[in-house]
């Protein structure tokens, strides 16, 4: 159970991730839980599929842990990200950060989710009522409909 940075294709227990970081020196645990949202910009999601380059993704999660340790030496971090098919309200990611005092737990947790969205090789495919797309950026404004890239996506 000491797998602090983990990609899994199974249900994530929030409690398991939290328990990895609770310890006598900490008084605060901040947890970020990403769940599958039904509507994005008015479009209804039916389900998602997450793909990952698993060994590299786990390395990059661990790197985020190291970055946090450098910025907040008293923090302890655990991150689990799920892949495969996920339905509405399913948990995709759980980040838990413990620190002695609360302010750092918020800041380090926020840092972790922002870095995940920048450097961890995981990809989300949205399945909508009228089609499907790999989502290509974190504002979720750019989608890549399978096999039909728009010219502006290629060269813009």
């Amino acid at each position, binding site marked *: 159970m000491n797998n602090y940075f983990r990609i899994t294709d199974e249900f994530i227990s929030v409690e398991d991730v939290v328990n990895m970081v609770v310890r006598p020196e900490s008084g605060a645990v901040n947890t970020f839980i990403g769940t599958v949202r039904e509507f994005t910009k008015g479009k209804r999601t039916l389900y998602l599929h997450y793909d990952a380059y698993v060994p*590299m993704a786990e390395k990059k999660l661990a790197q985020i842990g190291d970055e946090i340790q450098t910025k907040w030496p008293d923090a302890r971090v655990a991150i689990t990200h799920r892949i495969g098919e996920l339905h509405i309200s399913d948990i995709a990611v759980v980040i838990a950060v413990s620190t002695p005092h609360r302010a750092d737990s918020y800041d380090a947790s926020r840092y972790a989710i922002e870095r995940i969205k920048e450097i961890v*090789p995981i990809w989300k495919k949205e399945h909508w009522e009228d089609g499907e797309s790999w989502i290509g950026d974190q504002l979720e404004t750019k989608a890549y409909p399978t096999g039909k890239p728009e010219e502006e996506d290629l060269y813009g």
Partner: protein
Amino acid sequence: MVKVLLFAQFQEAAGRESVEIDAAGHPISHVKSVLKENYGILELDDANVAVNEEYTNMSTELKDGDTVAFIPPVSGG
């Protein structure tokens, strides 16, 4: 030989998870050209690349046995 890993939309465009390319001694940009021309992967300009699970850039020269991954814009979290 160099192993090239394909994910997400690249995997779907090529219809396969990986290809082997005789690219030792060449920069990654060479592999990119091969993927565009021979495997129909067109959206490569937005991609990042990794060699042996670490990010690098298109000019990195490949060695025999390297694993190259083309990383589409990520969307985890």
